[in-house]
């Protein structure tokens, strides 16, 4: 067989295959299973140790905590029907929901709650959320459906801490004789059928779920690593529901589309972290000058294409302070120059800033906008872009002067900032700044039981932070989800949780 014939056969084959690729019909979509796509997969299945957002989103469908934060960040009953602190605030009593079963059929009782919380408090587990439960001195179960937590102090934010999926209730049997990192037995609306990491996760509806729904037979979560491809899949009708992170992708669909993009304001915040421990950031005037020179709205408009809102330190609507009450949230370059002069640094200095590539997707753009803006006060920003693992390593070691960060929010201010702004906190060194006022306000905020007074404490807290400017708070972005027109019932949440998929119907 001569070479020319071989080549001709190959060419014909190639053209045929290409034709097949274009002409062959797409797989018929139908059935009552929700096909979902996202770019990042969960990194593990243990709700007590997993902290990556991608993992939490999956676990929130399978497991449940005692308390839930709804779409308005109100704390509502989940596995606990009601709860109350004692008069002196040293006891938290939780009344559990009755008639709930785990995915393996076993009954949910106080024993499971105590076993789960004990597992988190056990250092061998390696649960990062343990620090939020340290006020628990002992636990009792007066009956099968009541749990009493005895506390070392009136820990008001404990209730919010118990609304995190990191405090999910596992089956005491699985904890005792199984492997909680692999045996997935929860109480949630969906059960895990299979998990192929980085490829596909299949969930089945829980027929004996205690709440409303689910109204689909199951969910098939596909990992499509490129978010532009996810958008293409939505456009082509290949998937029903999507999650993505990159605001640039959100701005892609324009005009007439058969699908909608949902935006829920996040409680995570973008910030330029400064370490006041390093000269010349130890001078208050310098930090304030940076705060005044930066135009936060421009950072949103340029780095995030307008996909965000300028924010102060507390991002939750119930706690946020009006921006005009915070120091220098209106750009004032003149004042900035004046402050630099007072600090004796008119000629400026070099500010090295680290940023993680693609974590968040806007990190480098934010750094570049700030770099431009700080030129006005002669500060030369040197951007060091790092791979994520390397960034985390340096961040934890406080081996940086400035850092572009996207830090997580919480429904309650105390767990959100206790790790930074009190003496002896885990991240004192990372935060680079602490003073008596911040420490006092944090400690008061933890034990103040009067909601009105507590609110005032955290108003003062935010104003003080803005004035001392240890960090520059920039903006909050959105959590993005997308769905076809026939997908109804989904409610996006500020925490990014997609547990409302239990309410979704496919109206084809």
């Amino acid at each position, binding site marked *: 067989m*001569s*070479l*020319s014939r071989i*080549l001709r056969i*190959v*060419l014909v084959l*190639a053209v045929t*295959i*290409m034709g*097949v*690729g*274009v002409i*062959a019909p797409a*797989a018929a979509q139908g059935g009552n299973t929700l*096909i979902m*796509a996202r770019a990042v997969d969960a*990194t593990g299945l243990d709700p007590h*140790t*997993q*902290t*990556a957002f991608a993992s939490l989103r999956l676990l929130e469908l399978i497991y449940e905590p005692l308390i839930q934060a709804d779409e308005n960040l109100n704390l509502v009953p989940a596995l606990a029907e009601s709860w109350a602190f004692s008069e002196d605030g040293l006891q938290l009593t939780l009344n559990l929901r009755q008639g709930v079963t785990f995915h393996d059929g076993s009954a949910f009782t106080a024993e499971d709650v105590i076993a789960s919380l004990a597992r988190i408090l056990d*250092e*061998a*587990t*390696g*649960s*990062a*959320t*343990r*620090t939020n439960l340290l006020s628990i001195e002992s636990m009792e179960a007066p009956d099968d459906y009541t749990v009493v937590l005895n506390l070392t102090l009136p820990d008001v934010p404990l209730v919010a801490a118990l609304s995190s999926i990191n405090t999910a209730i596992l089956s005491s049997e699985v904890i005792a004789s199984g492997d909680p990192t*692999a045996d997935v037995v929860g109480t949630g609306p969906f059960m895990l059928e299979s998990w192929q*990491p*980085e*490829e*596909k996760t299949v969930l089945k509806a829980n027929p004996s779920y205690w709440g409303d729904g689910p109204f689909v037979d199951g969910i098939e979560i*596909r*990992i*499509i*690593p*490129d978010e*532009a*491809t996810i958008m*293409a*899949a939505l*456009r*082509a009708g*290949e*998937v029903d529901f999507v999650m993505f992170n990159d605001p640039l992708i959100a701005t892609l669909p324009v005009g007439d589309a058969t699908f909608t993009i949902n935006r829920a304001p996040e409680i995570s915040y973008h910030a330029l972290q400064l370490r006041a421990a390093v000269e010349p950031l130890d001078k208050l005037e310098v930090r304030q000058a940076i705060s005044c020179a930066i135009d936060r709205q421009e950072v949103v408009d340029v780095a995030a294409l307008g996909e965000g809102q300028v924010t102060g330190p507390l991002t939750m609507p119930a706690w946020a302070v009006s921006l005009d009450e915070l120091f220098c949230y209106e750009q004032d370059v003149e004042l900035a120059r004046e402050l630099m002069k007072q600090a004796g640094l008119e000629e400026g200095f070099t500010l090295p800033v680290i940023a993680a590539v693609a974590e968040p997707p806007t990190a480098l753009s934010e750094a570049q906008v700030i770099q431009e803006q700080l030129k006005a006060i002669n500060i030369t920003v040197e951007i060091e872009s790092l*791979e*994520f*693992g*390397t960034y*985390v*390593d340096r*961040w*934890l070691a406080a081996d940086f002067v400035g850092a572009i960060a996207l*830090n997580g929010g919480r429904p309650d201010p105390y767990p959100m900032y206790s*790790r930074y702004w009190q003496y002896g906190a*885990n991240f004192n060194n*990372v935060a680079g700044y602490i003073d008596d006022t911040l420490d006092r306000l944090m400690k008061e905020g933890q034990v103040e039981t009067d909601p009105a007074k507590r609110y005032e404490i955290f108003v003062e807290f935010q104003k003080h932070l803005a004035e001392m400017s240890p960090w520059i708070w920039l903006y909050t972005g959105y959590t993005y989800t997308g769905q076809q027109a026939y997908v109804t019932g989904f409610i996006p949440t500020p925490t990014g949780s997609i547990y409302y998929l239990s309410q979704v119907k496919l109206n084809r």
Partner: protein
Amino acid sequence: MFRYLAQRLVAVIPTLIGISLLVFVAIRLVPGDAITTMLGTEAGMLTEKQRASLEAYFGLDKPMVEQYFSWIGRVLQGDMGYSVRHGKPVLTLILERFPVTFELAMLSLVIALAIGISIGTLSAVRHNSMIDLFGRLFALTGLAAPNFLIGTLLIYVLSVYFGILPNAGDYTDFTENPLKNLKQIIFPALTLGFSFSASVMRTTRSAMLEVLGQDYIRTARGKGLRPRAVIFGHAVRNALIPIVTLAGVELGYLLGGAVIVEKIFALPGIGRLTLNAISQRDYALIQGATLFIAFNFVVINMLVDLLYAAIDPRISYVSKK
């Protein structure tokens, strides 16, 4: 011949050991470990005891030297270790992903060779004509355009203008559903094939030009052979050696997994597996995958050398008695 093969295979072992040592040390020098990549900044909230417990779980607590020897010992017995993230043995993961990469690589290579050799030959034969000009323009585009650009554009065109997306994260194996599988692989293969066909085209063209200027071609023409017989019977075969070298190198690279194309087209191949393993500092998986890729390169090198002997009768590996 077999002695030659055996000698080559034995010579591979020190290379692989060297690579294994290099990778083993290199990834441990990179900042961050499985714990920091799993927890992110939350890792700073762990107490000493918590960290020690997690280190034991991830196998990070033993001294480096001990880790290396225990790992290499097991590799020699066929056990490449266990990926804690995936919950599966490393070898299983690699063998699951390899068929995807292999299929993509072979298809891309076939497309690249088909397009590249045809256009290259045509260009060389119709030297300095309009066809030659278009051929060279084609090569320039293929070489200049990055394959992620071509891939993304392809997806955009398909989804916006044709309303289809070949692979929406639902990759199907060839053995399960050949038609669906081909549909999913053809576009990534086209992307990679197009990029590579440019190099093939240029190499073919210059090799052919050189060969066509040789005396024996003039003799063949003088003997009255038809042009097609001259080109395909004599010229191309002599021009094949540089093309085979190029194809061999490219195949080795493709079998390492074309990471970017795998990412854009959501193909679960070796490239993505290794890249994710690196981001997650999954040491066992990184070491195993790298060793596997290195081994592929070695095998391909051997096959290319054998192919030389098949093409060029002057080359022989049989020892002369």
